[in-house]
């Protein structure tokens, strides 16, 4: 049974991640991302399941020494939170996008491509 505080923590992490207020970064373990606070670090990662097409999402809490002190997975949250899998998946994918700079890359590419697009013709322009 996951505590109410842990549930609240996961919800807050999701909200702050979506708002772009957390600075997620890559870690040495591929597919694992971290965001640090003054005394703790939160990590988000995946782990395999018996079904090769399905993963579990794992949110970890690390103390001042870097030691893992608690973690929660989406199956553990399911009993208390509707859409726990979608919530953790959203945290993971958004964290990944920020850590890898995907959003920034997409914005810059879209900006560059829009500059290369031909100017839009005026509707009443006579072509000949």
């Amino acid at each position, binding site marked *: 049974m996951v505590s109410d505080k842990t549930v609240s923590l996961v919800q807050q992490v999701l909200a702050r991640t979506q708002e772009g207020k957390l600075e997620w970064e890559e870690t*040495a373990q591929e597919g694992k991302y*971290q965001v640090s606070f003054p005394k703790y*670090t939160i990590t988000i990662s995946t782990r395999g399941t018996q079904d090769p097409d399905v993963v579990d999402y794992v949110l970890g809490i*690390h103390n001042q020494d870097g030691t893992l002190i608690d973690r929660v997975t989406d199956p553990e949250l399911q009993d208390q939170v509707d859409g726990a899998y979608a919530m953790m998946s959203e945290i993971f994918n958004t964290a990944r996008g920020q850590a890898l700079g995907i959003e920034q890359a997409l914005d810059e590419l879209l900006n560059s491509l829009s500059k290369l697009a031909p100017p839009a013709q005026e509707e009443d322009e006579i072509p000949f």
Partner: protein
Amino acid sequence: MEFLDSLIEVTTISTIGNIASVLGLVITVAGFWIAIRGIQKTKQAAQHAREAVEEVRKDMHQFTSISELATAISSMEEIKRLHRQEAWNILPDRYSALRKSLISIRTAYPDLTDSQKATLQGAISQFTTIEKQVETALATDKPLKVARLNSLVTKEVDSLVELLEEIRSHIGG
């Protein structure tokens, strides 16, 4: 007539005495005021001296933190060299020593901002993960990606250099 003369004499002496008493009172009060002002100025000077000593203590503390941070940054550069040399067997000790150094800096310098503490915490966590990766690779004989590891270490170096400059800019001010 003699009585009157005596009365005038007594009155005059009494008046002189009264005037002297009042003057004496005024001088005493003035003396007290000067003494109190002197004490206040001494107190203020002592307070200023205490504040100056505290500023010097803080500056020295900051110098120490800068020195320790510079050492930590050097350690990270050394770790990158050892990664390139694939000296995996000796690296876990280096990671552990570096983490302890960063923990010590964070503990010893309580004036760090939350953002600065988070930077140190991020580096501590990062090297904990790197250490686990290397230990696992050593145990399972799994190859490690040097370029990736060094890219992560470089990011931590950059963060600590920024932190060092922030602390340096606050010295003396």
